[in-house]
């Protein structure tokens, strides 16, 4: 079952790496793949429905392949978490055919959350990392270091 309530969305996977966290994403198109991945990432840290949309940060990224672009995108979100002191809950990434990405995720300052994040994510790992085109759209598997 996926979190979005349809066949597409993200799902936390237990017991892939004992002290870390993993999730998989199924999406109908490439923009959704990145959107669900962003949601999955921050849902490890906090309940997304408790994260407001008061602030926006712009992101522009480029890569030469889809796999690396998703890794860069998720890593960029973690970088912004620390430097802007923010968590995000709404994502609307646009990816063009040349693996250029633009997004302006919405979120709020960590200090203004009613409940502190239950855990911090240090980084996105390459362990079992997978991004692939499927017959229904796109699939990703990500393990993050806590």
């Amino acid at each position, binding site marked *: 079952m996926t979190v979005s309530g349809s066949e597409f969305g993200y799902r*936390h996977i*237990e*017991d892939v*790496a*004992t*002290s*870390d*966290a993993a999730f998989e994403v199924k999406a109908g198109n490439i923009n959704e793949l990145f959107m669900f991945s962003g949601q999955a990432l921050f849902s490890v*840290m906090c309940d997304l429905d408790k994260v407001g949309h008061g602030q926006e940060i712009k992101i522009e990224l480029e890569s030469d392949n889809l796999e*690396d672009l998703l*890794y*860069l995108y998720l*890593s960029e979100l*973690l*970088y912004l*978490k*620390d*430097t*802007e*002191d923010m*968590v995000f809950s709404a994502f609307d990434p646009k990816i063009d055919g040349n693996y250029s990405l633009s997004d302006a995720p919405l979120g709020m300052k*960590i*200090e203004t959350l009613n*409940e*502190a*994040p*239950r*855990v*911090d994510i*240090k*980084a*996105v*790992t*390459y*362990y*079992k*990392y997978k991004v692939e085109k499927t017959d229904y759209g796109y699939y990703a598997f990500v*393990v993050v*270091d*806590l």
Partner: protein
Amino acid sequence: MRKNKINDYIYEIPASEKEGMRVPARIFGSRKIVQGLDEAVYEQITNVARLPGIRKYACCMPDGHSGYGFPIGGVAAFDLNEGIISPGGIGFDINCGVRLLRTNLTEKDVRPKLKDLMDVLFHTVPSGTGKKAILNLNQKDFEKTLVEGASWCKDNGYATDNDIECIEDRGCLPGADPSKVSEKAFKRGLGQVGSLGSGNHYLEIQTVNPEDIRDEELAHKLGFDRENQIAVMVHCGSRGFGHQVATDYLVTLSRAMKKYDLHTRDRELACAPFDSPEGRDYYAAMACAANNAFVNRQVITHRIREAFSNILGISQRELGMNLIFDVAHNIAKIERFKINGNTVKLLVHRKGSTRNLGPSSDLLPPKYRGIGQPVLVGGSMQTGSYLLLGTDSSEELSFNSTVHGSGRVMSRSQAKKRVRGRELFNEMTSQGIAIRTASFAGLAEEAGFAYKNLNDVVDSVTSLGISKPVLRLKPIGNIKG
């Protein structure tokens, strides 16, 4: 996977067991511990045994569990010319480590003021997620900390001579070069110098009860000389700075593998020859992060001393809060080892493993010569920790390495299913452990039952002969990161 029993505490996976293994893999631990390891540990340690330039064995310590790239508890040493360096053998939290401070206080002195002390420490030592720090450094000073490590702290009034002497490598990994660090890592690290972070990081007030002393003579020599003596333990690393350095170089080294015709079974084992531009650059940046972590733990120590002195109304001299030792458990370093009668320099990776020098090592500070290096084994916040000493036989058996903690046996989500944070908080409070945490859900993830039995882990390294137990420390106050 086939495991040959070498003795009661060493199991070996022969190099013939997996294609491409260059050396055997050795798992250290009692039968109970080895049988309890998840299969991924065997996959991961045998993948490590395939890496170019690896010498002797790929090792996994008794506190091992599955990680990514290397298993947690993994140790591997590589030839400086033919071998590699891999961020996956160090971890994202570069120089995550533990330090232990003794005091002249006993539990009787501290209990009446414990609540006040915990409140002050919780508010003055930043913990949890985000941009919070004790120090507000400019770029120039931040760069200095990366090169000078703990000696910067001494020059700026945050460390004593004894502190510097009692930090692994005197708190400064040589070869640090800030020009090899990305702008992003600088921005991420600037706002976090002097902060615990999250997850299993903590600041803990502990007692040493008479029944927990395993070697009274050694305990006395190390400064534990009164009943129910108070100690303080700090567990944290290089925060976002180290995480960004590791992330940056994981990408760089992953791309460089084609150039050097390197192939690994796990992409997280991305690596480059140590003697290559990419390998040298990563080492120089990793050393910056290692020094950043030494500074981080030292600055926190300064704040702890202030808090104790202020709350208890005694001078720092009366407090006697001296550093016993500070050890890294996520790091790669060049160290000397005797192999087949020859002394060789190798690049040893320790991921969730601690350096463990024996009494005869000339790298020890004078006061520990003839005793051995203090080793700090951080247990769960509920069950306590150990102070051990390194032995000389550790060089031959485990590249002067030993355990770093008790090792998780249960994932975070499983732990949360078994206990609610508030419930655990109440349980620990009734056990006499004061807790401060920003998140109760995060607390549940660190419950004692989520970890191996620490006594089993320590008994394994004791029986193996690589470390010697001195005493056990029990928590009375824990600030969870």
